[in-house]
């Protein structure tokens, strides 16, 4: 084992990474959800409600919306994850001892995150009620319902089904695994078995060898994407609200970036076992920090920054945005450009390394 440095590094490296990531980066309870405010009431009472919501730490007032459609639009584009809508008669009704309604719109595409937010908002409502009722004690109530009624409207995933949120994530996950593990293994296997040695003394060029090694996996990736989308749609009722064309086009960038990672691993590993370990090493932070399982909003700054280096982070945002929220190409353009950049960097770098290692 002293001679097998790679294994030792893996055995020490993986637990350390896991410990650090789980310990510091992963919070199941999401705080500081960006929230838009559409306050038609513009009164002492409405500002008080907004302030109480912000005081829970679950929400941060990020934007002001000038209309209801704008509030929805801000959530659609991912600018905010929630919006509080306070109607014009909010304060007036309260003063008359009538029940006042406010609406909280929540991006529920991630049920974990939204459930916390919903619970927090409802708690604010209840506290407010107790406060008001205490102040009014003695005065008869003219209504059966509590004074402040925060109605929650979960968008995109009204039943808060986790399967709907998980399916797009699974696509990203499966593609990552296939492209990274299978590609690196298949190249390393050829080196291990000597078939690569036999190939490089033939007239086919290094570029041709490489294309031959990776082209089939692009096809495999598209078959996987189609299979998961189809099953997800028909078995788990995952809605496909946006353009499939965008999904398929962006997937090419994601596949390319991951093939680059796979090739890179193949240039480091000498044996198939090492390439397995290597893939796992890359894979783990990918799963944990990309937002696949744990909401990125809940992570500390550093962890979130690290997550920005993974193609999966952007790909998940695009998939969830387009599939669940019906975002169009322009909405996901920033993520697409980042994905393009990562694909070019990873793939370009790995191709160069791969070509050098062949000789």
């Amino acid at each position: 084992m002293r001679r097998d440095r790679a294994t030792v590094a893996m055995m020490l490296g993986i637990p350390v990474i896991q410990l650090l990531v789980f310990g510091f980066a992963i919070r199941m309870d999401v705080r500081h959800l960006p929230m838009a405010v559409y306050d038609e009431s513009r009164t002492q009472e409405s500002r008080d409600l907004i302030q109480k919501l912000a005081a829970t730490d679950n929400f941060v007032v990020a934007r002001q919306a000038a209309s209801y459609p704008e509030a929805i639009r801000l959530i659609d584009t991912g600018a905010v994850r929630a919006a509080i809508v306070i109607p014009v008669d909010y304060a007036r009704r309260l003063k008359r001892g009538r029940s006042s309604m406010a609406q909280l719109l929540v991006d529920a595409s991630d049920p974990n995150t939204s459930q916390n937010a919903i619970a927090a908002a409802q708690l604010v409502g209840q506290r407010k009620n107790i406060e008001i009722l205490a102040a009014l004690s003695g005065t008869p109530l003219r209504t059966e319902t509590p004074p402040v009624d925060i109605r929650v409207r979960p968008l995109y995933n009204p039943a808060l089904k986790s399967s709907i949120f998980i399916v797009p994530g699974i696509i990203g996950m499966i593609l990552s695994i296939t492209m990274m593990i299978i590609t690196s293994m298949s190249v390393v296997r050829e080196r291990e078995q000597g078939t690569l040695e036999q190939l490089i003394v033939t007239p086919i060029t290094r570029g041709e060898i490489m294309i031959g090694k990776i082209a089939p996996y692009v096809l495999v990736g598209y078959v996987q994407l189609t299979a998961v989308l189809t099953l997800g749609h028909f078995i788990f009722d995952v809605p496909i609200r946006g353009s499939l064309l965008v999904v398929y086009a962006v997937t090419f960038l994601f596949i390319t970036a991951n093939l680059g990672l796979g090739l890179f691993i193949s240039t480091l590993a000498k044996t198939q076992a090492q390439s397995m370990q290597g893939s796992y090493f890359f894979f783990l932070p990918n799963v944990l920090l990309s937002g696949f399982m744990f909401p990125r909003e809940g992570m500390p700054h550093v962890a979130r920054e690290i997550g920005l280096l993974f193609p999966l982070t952007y790909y998940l945002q695009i998939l969830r945005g387009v599939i669940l929220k019906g975002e169009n190409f322009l909405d996901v353009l920033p993520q697409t450009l980042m994905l393009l950049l990562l694909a070019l960097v990873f793939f370009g770098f790995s191709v160069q390394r791969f070509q050098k290692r062949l000789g």
Partner: protein
Amino acid sequence: MPESSPEAEPVVLVRSIVRRFGRITAVDDVSFEIRPGEIFGILGPNGSGKTTTIRILCGLLQPTSGTASVAGIDVVRDPDAVKSRIGYMSQAFGLYRDLSIQENLRFYAGVYGLEGTWRERVDWAIRAMHVTAAPTQLAGTLSGGIKQRLALACALLHRPPVVFLDEPTAGVDPAARRLFWRIIRGLADEGTTMIVTTHYMDEAEKFDRLAFLSQGRLKAVGTPAEVKSSFGTGQSLEDIFVTLQEREGA
């Protein structure tokens, strides 16, 4: 004895090649010539520079200095062009174990760009190389001897004038070795130049000429008899080999 006349143009020309890896000199000023149709042996203990020399001739490695040409192509200046003119059979079985005999041959026919003629070439290779197994049998399940002849068949599909065989008989039983050498001799008689490395000194007698390498230097080159006499009388090639190796170890 060589079939070709001594005045025939050499098919392989090596002139003072040197290859250094960092501070180690793997090949140190080696020169020799090989004529068409020769079975030419490259002998030497491990680490003597055999593999480095062959890799340079196959265009896989650039020499630090010196020139070399194979089948009329300057391998230093145009290393990629030589690849369609040579066949190469590696020590490790380099074919796809999960493909059948026929699929491997078909694949290599494609790799060498045999479009229209691949079918007849594959049939020829199976017959001439005595690949005596069902064409649909998976290569990974073949015996050592048939594996070796299948690898040779793949290396010969495109009729290369020069073929490199790296330790071809390692791990093959005596009967299969004898058949293999008969095939090699037949190919040489038809004009194909065979360049072979080996550890087996009893096989050295089968070479028309051979080069003896030790620590990257060329110790002797010529017919087996010439090489023997250059080291002094009475010693067999095996004795010379062991002596060289012991001297290095000391």
